[in-house]
């Protein structure tokens, strides 16, 4: 579904990603793991159109999309749930959810259906739908961020550390939600520092080190996390 080939990207003259090669298959939840500064968030931002690659190509369903702005990426079906639970603090919870459907704003009935679906997935958001998003808790903000992204009807959801800075109970709730989305067949690419969460959810794991995919393997019952440590610490092959 998503093919990322020999992509170099960064900020100004500082390159963070070097020859990044990555494939995400339809209906799969893939995870990118890596230590701080390995380029995980930059990889997602590049895929989401927030960082423009200087080399290489990105295709979604065979269509070349590298270099498009982030709003066009969302229109093509690739939507980012950014790190930091970013919401539109002064706008209501419902307005935050609805803005995710901006590119298909003429589809009134579809938007109403999707809004109901988001509310059934996140009942707490329905209760607080008129509240300003800025007063929500961290977990609620993360749910709002997810709900907003789902309103765009994504083919591929890009999740940047959805468990960061959340209480363990809330991380469990977020995991359950992602598992539920995986069951619906939604393709997801998850960037995480929380290895146990990623290993529990993902079908394929990629290890990113110094802006390159150092290791990729399918997850399974015999998956051993101990060798991940080697890649984290830099001694893996």
């Amino acid at each position, binding site marked *: 579904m998503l093919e990322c080939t020999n992509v170099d990207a960064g900020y100004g003259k500082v390159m963070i990603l070097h020859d990044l090669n990555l494939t995400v298959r339809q209906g799969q939840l893939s995870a990118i793991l890596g230590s701080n500064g390995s380029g995980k968030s930059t990889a997602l931002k590049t895929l*989401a*159109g*927030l960082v423009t690659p200087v080399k290489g190509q990105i295709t979604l369903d065979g269509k070349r999309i590298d270099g498009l*702005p*982030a*709003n066009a*990426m*969302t*229109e093509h079906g690739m*939507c*980012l749930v*950014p790190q930091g639970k*970013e*919401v*539109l*603090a*002064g*706008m209501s919870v419902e*307005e935050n959810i*609805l*803005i*995710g*459907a*901006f*590119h298909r*704003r003429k589809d009134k009935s579809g938007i109403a259906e999707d809004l109901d679906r988001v509310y059934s997935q996140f009942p707490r958001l329905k209760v607080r739908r008129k509240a*300003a998003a*800025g*007063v*929500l*808790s961290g977990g609620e903000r993360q749910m709002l961020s997810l709900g*907003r*992204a789902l309103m*765009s009807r994504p083919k591929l959801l890009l999740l940047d550390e959805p468990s960061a800075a959340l209480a363990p109970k809330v991380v469990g709730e977020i995991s359950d939600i992602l598992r539920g989305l995986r069951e619906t067949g939604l393709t997801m690419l998850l960037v995480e520092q929380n290895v146990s969460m990623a290993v529990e959810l993902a079908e394929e794991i990629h290890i990113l080190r110094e802006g390159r995919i150092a290791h990729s393997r399918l997850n399974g019952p015999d998956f051993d996390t101990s060798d991940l440590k080697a890649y984290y610490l830099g001694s893996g092959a």
Partner: protein
Amino acid sequence: MVSDLVLLPQFLTNGLVIGSGYVLVAVGLTLIFGILHIVNFAHGEFYMLGGFAAVLGSQLLGLPALPTLLVVAVVMAAFGLVVERVVFRPLGGKDPTNAIIASFGLSVLLQNLMLKTVGAEPMAVKSGFAPGAIQIGNVFITAERIAIVAAMAVIVAALLLVLRYTWTGRALRSLSENPTVALISGVNVRRVSLITFVIGSVLAGLSGALMSTVFMVQPNSGALIVMKAFIIVVVAGMGSIEGAIIVGLALGLIESLVAGYMGNELRDIVGFLIVILVLAVRPQGLFGLKTERS
């Protein structure tokens, strides 16, 4: 110095009229400076051009009041579109100082262009309303002044409705809150920025047109009003449209009271004193409160 309270309603009425003009020009600047973060020192010249566009409609084309305002809106929309595309968009994403200096250059260019074209003589916009003041109790007011307040109320109400209930309004507010979230939500930030700039230009132009029915227009008409507009935007809090409405009206009223009771020479000082005081006590502005959880 006048200390007679009998004149208070007249001062308040005058303040309401001036404040209404301030509201339109300051709400326009809120969109351009508070939301798009373009420090546009040429905003006063947008106001001035609105006045001359109204002269074009009322004097040269002989149009009545409402069609004249329509002409002003169309001219200023086209002007705003060109300025955003030609002057400010190419500077987007670069050092903000570039845009500030460009706006100064634009301000000087527009003033001198109008001086060259129409000269320095003040020109009046003919409203077509019956001459003479209407007396309501102790208050005397002309039809033009009533029209300024009424037009401001209608335009601002329409803008607030658009911002709250339309997709364009939601997109504009999302851009104001967090451009990255707006972008990843599918909002075409470039297009919405252009629309925002155009609306801001039209509001400044309409303010200039309306105020020129009372105070006349000349090439340097916008020089002081742009400073007042910046005062209002900063005192209200960056990006707060409701705040700009309240502070704009309040500044008009305060200036009128100060001019009436303390002397006309103090009128233009009071706003600057207020902005210094507010920045010292509440740097985010009076209505710049973010509903962030601590």
